């Protein structure tokens, strides 16, 4: 087979920015002859190549699918607006990188949903592929469009664009999907029947097989399967033995620099902490670890097969990985000192151990400390169950200052439930205390002026968190609050050593609508796309006016989805998904939040969230 085949001419490639985004043929790309396989799967990350290539989950599934001899999984990313324009002008169909063939020729188009602001890009992918945008308009022979990833935990706003969603970790059920598809193809079943068979596979949600009815106030009255045999609840799929799950030990290595351009070593899934705003902390429960021996082998193999000179650890909270000391010692001594591989550290809790590791792998003068207290006062940190105290922050900062650091970064959220003016003002107050702590460092130990950078984002309530019922602030109130915090920063004695940034409100408001939206949102997304919205996650392309117009045209109120606190009894759009963590647990956490009562982490004691039903992970670790 000719691997130099290209979907785009030289002339087009020379016109567009970064042509290497579209030519494939990277190191470790899988090469197969499409004529030799029975299933062709186009896997898509609906954003630009450099972002998509940084995503570990897609590399995991790419590797796993291609281990099947009967399947060829290829990749697709969103064409940047410069190429998008040319493809529409010249009627060039969207193509995969591997064989440069049209997506329309494939059996499946799988789209990973990592953030809400990629939704219009999904429509771009479908339109450029020539696939009807609405699932109901697709006939036999059109690829089955699957969605997966974090946003599929509330797929409803985009449900009408997808044939199916896979709820949970991809490693578990895709083999079944492919086997069922093979059999159905042999039987010559039509599209509807194939979807019906998919609906019986654990974790597969077929939106067209369900009916939603609404009350007069716009909330959901009922949500139920239309056909006998279609499950009422979709069970989240979870890998229970991470050591045995496939892992891409020959990662794809892009030619152009990707956002994450290094070996990524996933050490753990899930998080024991239970921060009440965090969706990942709930949907990936229970916490599961990879064994340190397996990780050492992966690290060696991946460095060798990729040629990368940098390795980073991936997890939600690496400090909670129990063999972190052994692993970092290995990475520094065996790979760092002997092979010249740099260790890039994820945000670790600042303590003596992490400072020691940082000292060994980073240039202190250039690196900074990172704290994510999320809220400015202890009261509010208790509300969100963020187990980080002011004392811990000040102690960590002092140790670091003694060690030679002088740059500190803080991450906060504004608009958290129950937040008061005092909580907001607690942000500059906390930063001021840390800045003042630097004064206690003897002059001869100082390496320069202390510099503190704090940034605040706008809290967005997410499904399957204790805050899924919470009201989000309206955009103006958030902006006023952020301005006020900025003013208070200016009045601090150490104002000259501190910087405060905050995110604009508009994108977060939309994110808030999509995160907890229902099927009524699909038309809004469609109209916004039709009016030119695309790459909404990119500030330079985001056009809020167009979005406002799309909401107005469909008579959909954003406030209904954002600023409205839901009663606990309300049927939520994502209630049909069972993540193991029960609604009762989330509701009790919501109640405890309002009272400012903290919940211990999973290693301190079990709070009975429901995830133990998966039969593994931290729920069954013997306490030590």
């Amino acid at each position, binding site marked *: 087979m000719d*691997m*130099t085949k*290209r979907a785009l*001419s*030289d*002339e087009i*490639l*020379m*016109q567009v920015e970064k*042509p*290497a985004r579209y*030519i494939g*043929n*990277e*190191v470790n*790309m899988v090469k197969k002859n499409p004529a030799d396989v029975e299933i062709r799967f186009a896997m898509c990350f609906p954003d630009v190549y450099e972002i998509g290539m940084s995503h570990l989950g897609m590399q995991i599934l790419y590797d796993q699918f291609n281990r099947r001899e009967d399947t060829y999984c290829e990749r697709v990313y969103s064409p940047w607006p410069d190429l998008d324009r040319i493809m529409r002008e010249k009627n060039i169909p969207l193509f995969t990188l591997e064989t440069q063939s049209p997506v329309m020729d494939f059996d499946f188009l799988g789209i990973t949903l990592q953030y809400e602001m990629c939704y219009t890009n999904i429509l771009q992918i479908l339109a450029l592929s020539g696939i009807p945008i609405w699932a109901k308009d697709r006939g036999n022979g059109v690829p089955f469009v699957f969605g997966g990833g974090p946003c599929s935990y509330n797929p409803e706003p985009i449900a009408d664009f997808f044939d199916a969603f896979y709820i949970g970790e991809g490693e578990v059920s895709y083999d079944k999907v492919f086997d069922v598809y093979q059999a159905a193809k042999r039987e010559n079943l039509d599209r509807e029947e194939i979807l019906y068979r998919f609906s019986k596979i654990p974790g597969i949600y077929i939106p067209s097989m369900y009916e939603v009815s609404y009350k007069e106030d716009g909330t959901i009255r009922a949500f139920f399967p239309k056909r006998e045999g279609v499950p009422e609840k979709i069970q989240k799929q979870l890998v229970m033995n991470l050591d045995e799950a496939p892992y891409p030990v020959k990662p794809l*290595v892009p*030619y*152009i*620099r990707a956002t994450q351009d290094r070996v990524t070593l996933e050490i753990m899934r899930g998080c024991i902490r239970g921060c009440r705003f965090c969706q990942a902390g709930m949907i990936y429960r229970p916490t599961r670890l990879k064994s340190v021996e397996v990780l050492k082998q992966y690290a060696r193999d991946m*460095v*060798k*097969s*990729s*040629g*990368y*000179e940098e390795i980073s650890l991936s997890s939600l909270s690496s400090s909670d990985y129990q063999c972190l000391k052994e692993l970092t010692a290995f990475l520094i001594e065996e790979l760092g000192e002997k092979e*010249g591989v*740099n260790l890039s550290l994820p945000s670790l809790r600042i303590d003596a151990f992490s400072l020691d590791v940082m000292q060994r792998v*980073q*240039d202190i003068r*250039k690196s900074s400390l990172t704290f994510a207290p999320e809220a400015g006062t202890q009261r509010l940190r208790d509300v969100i169950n963020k187990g980080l105290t002011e004392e811990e922050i000040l102690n960590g900062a002092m140790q670091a200052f003694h060690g030679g650091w002088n740059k500190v970064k803080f991450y906060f959220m504004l608009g958290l439930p129950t937040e008061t003016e005092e909580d907001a003002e607690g942000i500059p107050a906390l930063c001021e205390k840390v800045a003042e702590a630097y004064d206690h460092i003897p002059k001869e130990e100082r390496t320069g002026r202390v510099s503190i950078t704090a940034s605040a984002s706008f809290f967005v309530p997410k499904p399957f968190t204790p805050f899924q019922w919470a009201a989000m602030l309206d955009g103006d109130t958030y902006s006023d609050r952020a301005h006020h915090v900025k003013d208070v920063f200016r009045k601090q004695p150490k104002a000259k050593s501190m910087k405060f940034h905050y995110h604009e409100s508009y994108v977060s408001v939309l994110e808030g609508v999509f995160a907890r939206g229902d099927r009524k949102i699909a038309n809004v997304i469609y109209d916004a796309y039709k009016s030119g919205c695309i790459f909404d996650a990119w500030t330079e392309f985001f056009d809020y006016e167009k979005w406002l117009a799309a909401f107005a045209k469909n008579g959909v109120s954003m406030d209904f989805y954002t600023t409205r606190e839901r009663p606990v009894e309300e049927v939520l759009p994502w209630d049909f998904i069972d993540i193991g963590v029960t609604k009762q647990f989330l509701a009790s956490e919501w109640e405890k939040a309002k009272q400012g009562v903290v919940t211990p982490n999973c290693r301190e004691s079990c709070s009975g969230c429901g995830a133990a039903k998966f039969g593994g992970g931290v729920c069954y670790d013997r306490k030590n």
Partner: protein
Amino acid sequence: MTVRIKYTKTGNFKFIGHLDLMRYFQKAVKRAGLDIAYSKGYSPHQMMSFAAPLALGVTSEGEYFDAQFNTLVSSDEFVRRLNAQMTEGVEVRDVILLPEKAKNSMSLVAASDYHVTPVQGFLEEEWDRLLRGAGKLLEQEQIEILRKTKKSEKVEDIRKGIYKLYADGNQLYMLLAAGSEYNLKPELVTEALCGFLSIPYNRAAYQVHRLETYMKNEEGALVSLLESGTKIQ
């Protein structure tokens, strides 16, 4: 110990920019298990330097870089191990060991030669005129073109940078000055030739291919950069 590596850059690799190509080789050397030397400090980098950057869209069979290794293998083994790590479009052709204190390839580069071929959307008739006109252009004492930079435009005489320019079968051959003293891009010469013959210039209509990169030997003759050293046995 410094070695010089000659390689090709063809096919889709013409869309990979110079910096990305450097990073590609850094990883390939690691995958090949070759004992590359690193600089000291917190962010050590491989001791590698490239001869003459190639513009995006240009292919080549005469590219070079120098690299320092702590231990060596034979030239044949270098070539074999590196080629086992290459993706389609790059092929390592030769590896030589440089004597101590040898100048690096970047500072040695004096000239490069190219073939220019018509690709698409270009009339055959015009191409023939272009081939026939090459000699006439070279007879001019001055060849003035407008050179545009980000800030300014200035008229420049590029005649001194053109050593040879003629029709080679159906291709246009040119030998041009390259390197730090004076560097002339083949696209500029093609553009100048088009202008001279009143043919509209369209960059996408030509494929430029670099044949070789040269240095000057002691007698001042242009020779291959491989002349600096010897094969490792």
